[in-house]
């Protein structure tokens, strides 16, 4: 009697991703708070970055400043999006309906985090546009044809990292607290705005394992000059590694959430 479908494999996977992405982007795009954040935070980031670089006597690197500020926006969108999305699902009571569906929870989470990184992509593009339009930042990337792919890689890599973040947030009833704590350190350790060369030696391993570092390196190389392909591939590889970790973690996380009863707020 049960009409659970028999279609499996790649078709089912891509369909699930497409429908999930559409659903969550649509839902995010209809939130007043999300819209205000998405529209105004790039402007704030771009303004700060441009003034910082002007004050630091680096007018030649203004485009990189705008891109760096955009990357900060992507990371914030993914971090707060992943944590906020899980928290919001919990508030709406949909987390239980998602978990009780006969689809692996990792597959349910993927479109949610990719939806937040898509919002991040907007943030990245908007920051650069704000920089060019409002602050007359000259738009002359060193590798114009590689800039868009590098940006896309950045969003995908961060989305993949977001899946691991979201996995941990399932366990925590107050996920936003962890998101707040992770916001600034990851910007610093990834060198999205300022080079990591000025950081102590012991921070290097942290920088290497963050896909944000490599994604930022690729995007900045595309704007300011340097190798784009290698850091892009490393970012994707690391992102895939994070997805692998998330898949393993989610089996445990889901069982732990069922054991601890953290799927609801009540």
């Amino acid at each position: 009697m049960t009409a659970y479908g028999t279609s499996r494999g790649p078709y089912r996977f891509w369909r699930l991703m497409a429908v999930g992405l559409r659903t969550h982007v649509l839902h995010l795009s209809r939130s007043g708070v999300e819209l205000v954040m998405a529209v105004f935070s790039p402007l704030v980031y771009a303004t700060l970055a441009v003034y910082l670089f002007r004050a630091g006597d680096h007018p030649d690197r203004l485009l990189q400043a705008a891109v760096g500020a955009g990357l900060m926006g992507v990371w914030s969108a993914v971090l707060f999006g992943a944590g906020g999305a899980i928290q919001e699902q919990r508030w709406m009571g949909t987390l239980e309906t998602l978990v009780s569906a006969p689809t692996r929870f990792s597959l349910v989470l993927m479109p949610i985090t990719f939806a937040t990184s898509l919002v991040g992509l907007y943030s990245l593009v908007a920051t650069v546009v704000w920089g060019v339009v409002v602050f007359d930042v000259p738009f002359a990337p060193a590798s114009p044809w590689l800039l868009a792919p590098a940006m896309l890689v950045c969003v995908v890599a961060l989305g993949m990292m977001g899946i691991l973040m979201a996995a941990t947030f399932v366990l925590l009833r107050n996920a936003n607290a962890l998101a707040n704590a992770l916001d600034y350190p990851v910007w610093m350790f990834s060198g999205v705005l300022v080079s990591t060369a000025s950081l102590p030696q012991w921070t290097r391993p942290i920088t290497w394992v963050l896909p944000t570092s490599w994604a930022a390196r690729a995007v900045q190389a595309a704007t300011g000059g340097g190798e784009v392909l290698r850091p892009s591939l490393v970012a994707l590889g690391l992102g895939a590694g994070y997805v692998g970790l998330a898949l393993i973690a989610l089996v445990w996380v889901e069982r732990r959430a069922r054991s601890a009863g953290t799927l609801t707020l009540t």
Partner: protein
Amino acid sequence: MTTDLAIEAVDLARSYRTRTGWLKPQRKTIDAVRGVSLAVGRGELFGLLGPNGAGKTTTIKMLNTLLLPTAGSARILGYDVARQPLEVRRRIGYVFGGDRGLYERLSALDNLRYFAELYGVEPREQLPRIHQLLEQVGLTGREKERVEGYSRGMRQKLHIARGLLHRPDVLFLDEPSIGVDPAAARELRRMVADLVEGGTTVLLTTHYMAEADELCDRIAVIASGTVRAEGTPDELKDRVRKLDVLEIEVHDAIGEEHLRLLRETGGIERATVETKGTIDVVTVHARPSHASHASVLAALGDLRTGKVTTREPTLEDAYLSIVSDAATAGSEG
């Protein structure tokens, strides 16, 4: 996997550990469910009744794989809820009452499309199935409106449509009629009856006794995390049928003193009061030929009384009797 039982729970228990304070943390264990055993046959409509905090929802959440039991075991259509959650989820639907559990900023259609995908409904079957369900629950024509504009009754209908998308063999309905107006509640009952007629097994929790009486083949009354009584609605009513039920309308406010006097009157087993509009209605359960109308009225003293009626015990009487016995046993234990 074939089994005659749709739902089978053996000594199912669930406890929560809570911690308060940071410097000197105090840990407490709360036993929400303490050894519930149930056996529900295929195609049966089984009711789970009990007061708030009795453990009904916790029991349902263990059966539908959202919570892991801390002791005991449960199987749905032969699949273990703790070890085979995906197998169980493919065969069950879960509908709960209240406003939550839907994507408010999306339309009913978008909600159902997404859940149809998550529930693995074949792509070519999705839209026909969604439209069939929208028709069935009476939301046709409103499916493109955002859920945030829906009334409680409409949300409940959408919840039911969501829970039925993949034609589950077993449906868990956790207080589906809460906050729903009488007309919508009647429609809901008709829909549930139709589902059972079509072979779906339903586990229903509700606070509405008339609903349970009308729908359920069998009922378990749960209080303080354990099953206190189980049987058909008639079997449960038989437990209190040996008592006469008197209802007395009172036009003055009844105090605790009057109730104490009533309870101490010979032959009276139970006395409760309920305010209905401007009057209080006292319900007295008395052993036949022990408490006359006169002795009951005498206990109410100088209060202005109105109509006095004698009626057949209802499921509500049986339920209140079972729950109050459980409370008495609990306070003595």
